Every structure is written in C-alpha cells, then in structure tokens.
C-alpha cells in the first residue's frame, strides 16, 4: 500500500499529464451541476462539488452501446451474420468518483458477471477502468450512504482513494491496480502520522455529517409476497408520473433494452438503458402487459432495490444512498419514505 501526500496543484498536474496519454474521466463543472466527462486539454476537474448530476455508471455501462454490426446486403456472403462491434478497452481512469458511486459498480457486478453468464462489454469495461476515488468530507442533505452499507470514506470498489486535506490531497492505494498507478504517477511526499490522524478525524466528521438514513432492517423478515400485496403501493404513489429520471440517474439501475437499427444495408444491434418506469418495458408482443398500472411499476422499482436484490444476493440493498433519485424526482417520490413504509409494514 502506498500512502502519499500531494499538493493540490501537483495532483491536478499529474492527472492532466495522465489525461494526455490515456482516457481520464472526471467531474467538470457544467453550470448548475458538475458532470463526468473525458478530460480534454484545458478541462479542470472539479473535486469540490460533491455530487455529479448523473452517476458515472455510463463509463462502464454506456447509455447506448453498439453490440453487433451486420450487413443486410443480399449479395454479400456475410448477409445477416452478426459480428461483434470493435471496442477500445485501453486502460482508462475515473478520477474524483465518490465512494458511493464506486461501490455501485460492485453491486451491479453480480448482475453482469455471474457464474453462468458473463456480459463481455460490462466486464471488459469494468476491468479496464481504474477508479480514483474522492472521499466526501461532508455529506449533502440527501446523502444516506452510511445506512446502505457504504461510508463517505468507503474504499469498496476503489483502486485509489484521495482525501481533501485543505491544501493537499492524501492519496492512498487500495488495490494493486491503484498501487501501479501511483507508482507511475510518482512524486508526492510520504504521508506522515499527523496526516493519518487528521484523515481519521476527517472521516469521523464526515460520517457524522450524514444526517439522513434509509430504514431497511425489517425487510429481511417480511415475506416477498406479503410486501408485494401491501395496500400502500396503490394509495401512496399516485403522484409518480413514470418518467425514467430516477432510473437513469441511479448508479445501480442496470436494466437495458436491445434494439436493431438499419441504415440502408448496414445494421447495428444496440443496447440502451431502459427503465422499469416505462409501460413498454414489460409489454408482451401480444399486447398483454403484466405491469400495466403505474403502481405496479413503482412497486417493481422499489421491491427490486430493497427486497428482491438483497434476498437474492445477500449483499444488502441495491442502493448506495447517493440521493440522486430523490433530487431528480419532479413528484418528490422519496426512496427513504418508500423504504420506511415497506419497513413498517405488517400484514
């Protein structure tokens, strides 16, 4: 493990240098929010604002991703034969990712990297990415990572973690991948014991700054079918307008759709993010839709996150407590409130 201290300028400079050679994705100020983007000449990463508008899940799982290409030219020998689209899996770096977002990849991994089936694109993308995390010194009012199993200083899913110490960053490697990166970057000064003590203090303060929580302690005991049939689903969530804002901004929502597109004689098979909020998500070809009603779709989203996922994988809830869905929702459907209703439910 390497633990070093970098002056802020030095660290930014090191990242800028890294960005010249490889793809570095970091939050950049984009007006009202900062957004993750690939650093280009002149971009200055914004390590101050705590939450980007959208999570960086698209780095590993792009919103639209070409899977296969094919020709529909009847003259051609290759007519109708699918070929894998060419991909660039060169090493890339995500800097300034918050512990909650980094942890989300670990929660999503169990879906794409299973004992029976492997999703090649997700896995290749994930494995070629090095995550340089930025610990949160202070939580936002909508953050509740500590009650989902994470922490503002959490290291799960990170290769390197950095802590803002005022005028410098304390940089620590978590994995071998991270150690390799820090060796390449070089520079910095060895971390002193004073610094380590200060980090511990900062961590304590950061954890204490998380004021909000999600209550899910009872959910394990409750029966899936009982919760499913609970009466609050129908009554409480009339306000939802079924936009996909929550699912698209959520770092742990992974559902996708597969679409074929043809331009002239060239075809593409593309996968796109999909959302359980859309009626089309489950509509059968025959016209029947098992989740025809708004409340059924809401129920699916929250049951999946808070009940099905924890029961199936035993990794806790499928939520890292970033609070983005709470902020984005135009109708103020708040996952903390939904969890409370579910948690307090008794038959």
């Amino acid at each position, binding site marked *: 493990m390497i633990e070093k201290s970098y002056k802020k300028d030095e660290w930014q400079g090191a990242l800028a240098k890294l960005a010249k050679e490889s793809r570095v994705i970091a939050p950049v100020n984009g007006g009202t929010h900062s957004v993750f983007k690939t650093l280009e000449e002149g971009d200055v990463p914004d390590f101050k604002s705590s939450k980007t508008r959208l999570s960086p899940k698209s780095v590993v799982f792009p*919103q639209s991703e070409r899977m296969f290409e094919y020709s529909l030219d009847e003259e051609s020998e290759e007519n109708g034969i699918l070929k894998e689209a060419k991909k660039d899996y060169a090493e890339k770096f995500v800097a300034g990712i918050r512990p909650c977002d980094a942890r989300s990849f670990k929660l999503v991994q169990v879906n794409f990297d299973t004992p029976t089936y492997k999703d090649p694109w997700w896995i290749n993308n994930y494995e070629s990415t090095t995550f340089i995390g930025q610990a949160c010194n202070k939580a936002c009012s909508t953050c509740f990572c500590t009650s989902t199993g994470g922490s503002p200083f959490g290291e799960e899913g990170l290769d390197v973690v950095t802590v803002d110490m005022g005028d410098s960053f304390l940089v620590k490697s978590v994995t071998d991948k991270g150690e390799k990166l820090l060796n390449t970057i070089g520079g910095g000064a060895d971390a002193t014991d004073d610094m380590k003590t200060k980090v511990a203090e900062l961590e304590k303060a950061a954890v204490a700054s998380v004021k909000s929580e999600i209550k899910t302690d009872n959910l394990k005991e409750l029966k899936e079918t009982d919760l499913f049939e609970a009466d609050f689903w129908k009554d409480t969530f009339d306000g939802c307008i079924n936009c996909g804002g929550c699912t698209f901004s959520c770092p742990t929502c992974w559902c996708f759709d597969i679409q074929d597109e043809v331009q002239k004689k060239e075809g593409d098979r593309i996968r796109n993010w999909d959302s359980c909020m859309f009626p089309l998500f489950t509509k059968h070809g025959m016209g029947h839709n098992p989740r025809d009603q708004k409340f059924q779709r809401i129920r699916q989203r929250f049951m999946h996150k808070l009940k099905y996922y924890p029961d199936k994988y035993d990794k806790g809830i499928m939520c890292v407590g970033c609070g983005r869905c709470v902020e984005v929702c135009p109708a103020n459907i708040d996952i*903390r409130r939904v969890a409370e209703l579910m948690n307090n439910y008794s038959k």
Partner: protein
Amino acid sequence: MVNYTDKIRETAKRLLNDGTVDTFIGYRKGSLPFVNNPAIIHNAEEADELVWDSNCALNLCNYLTNRTDKIGVLATGCNSRNIAMHLKENKIKREQLVIVGVPCTGMVDHRAVKGMVDGEILEVTEAGEEITVKGDDFEKTFKTADVLQTNCQTCAHRNPVIFDELVADEVPELDGVNQYADVEAVEAQSDEEKWQNFENIFESCIRCYACRNACPLCYCPTCFVDESKPQWVGKSTDPTDTMTFHFLRAFHMAGRCTDCGACERACPVDIPLRYLTKKLNKDAKDIYDYESGTNVEDKALLDTYKPTDLNDFIR
C-alpha cells in the same frame, strides 16, 4: 401565496365531507426544499396535509387524464388552461370536476436560486412576497418575483380561466411584458445559428422522457417513440434520434401547449424544452390569434380551420 393554504384545506375538507368530490388533488410538503409532492387524497382528514407555496410547479392536470371519479383540483392560470384542453379533448368531463382556482404569482425557479448561493440549500421559507433560503453557513432572502421560472416571468394568464371557486381574489395580470422576446431573438438569427442552438440545447438529453411524462397534454396511449411498426425514431442516444424526438414531441404540442413549464421543471439535465413549444405558441398567436386553453368552447387550433387561413406559402 402561502396564505392560500388555510383556504385550500378548508375547501378540500368541505368538498370531501359533503361528498361533492371523491378525490381532491393538491400538493403536500415535499421532503426537499423547492419540491412539493402531488397529493391525491380521498378523505377529509388528509386535507390538513395540503399546502400552497411557490414550489407547486408540477402540473396537477397530469392526474386528471381518463379518471372516472369526481375530483376537486387546484388550478392556477396555466393549470386551468390545461384543464380546458383536457375538456376539449374529452379526457375528462366537466361535471366530474370542481375546479378550485388559485390566482398565481408564479413559481420559483429552484435552479436559478441554487445558482445564486454558495452551498447546499437546506431550507426554504416563504413569507409574503419573499423567500428565504438557508444553508449551513448562509441565509439569503430573495424577492419571489425576481427568481421566478422563465415561463412565469412572462405569464399571460396568472388567474384561472375556468374555475368553480377561487381561493383568493384575482391577482393583477402582468403588464407590458413581451412574452416572446426570446423567440424573436432566435427568429432574427441565421439558419446556421438556429441549427447550432438546436443541436446544443438537446445534446445533453438522456432520453428519460421526463418532459413527455410531466406534460399534462402528453397522454397518448402509445407515444410515437414507443411505436414499433414502423419505428419512427431510434431509441439510442444518437443525436439525430434525440433531435427528432424533441422536434416531434414539440410539434404534437402545437396549439395545445399552455407554457406551464412542467417539462422544463422535470428535466433532470436542465434542457430548456420550451425553446420549441414557445415558437409554436407564438405562431399560433401571430398567425391565428389563438391561445390554447383560454376557454372550453373553442375547438383546438389544429382541429378546426378557416377558409381564409394563411395560404401564401402554398403554390
């Protein structure tokens, strides 16, 4: 407008208690500053949860489409125009509705306010014509009129156009504002500039369809983006597909959009969606002297014609 709250609760209670309505639709305090939670309540006890302030921007007309019960609904100027459009388009019957009119002085643009302070806003309080925002280490007061949503700044119908009762006296309509100054500015631009605007504006779209779903008039059972035979628009984030979606969505609003701003408010990536619909509104006004939803009797703009309609662009 905060002083409407008591009257609204009282009205809701009365209507629910005497059985005039089965359901009352209003707002309840949200869990975050600047957001209220639409409340669809069925009994008088819940009426005490209802509130009114300058954050009631999600259009309640969304919840009326195809309902069959008797409903009391709060309606500001733009909301009432949406109700009028619903009545015109037979999405609900007039006798089902008790429209409780709310004279409105505009809704606060939370993005603008957030941009004016340094730090996270934890609390918003409203008193009289002012709002005060508080964070960990700051407190700032704004005149509500200075931080209104852009559509509210130039609103032409602040008072409900149809209602059964009002919760307060009508407010004065805005005087001497040019509703379409921004559209005029764009009209003066070259084609290249216009195209550039169009590309830039919709570049960040994530195709979550929040704009469509937040719009009270987007109620088609199957939206054209979801149609598969034929498939009009691709579903990826390809820029051409995104632009096609927004162009067609806007066009479906022609002669219907009431400029309520629900689409912009709902957009998670701050796209100024009214860029297109406002142009259509302006054309409707300029060419046909038509404003959507200002009354129930008129037919919708594209549902009628005059033999003398503009013809000079047709050979």
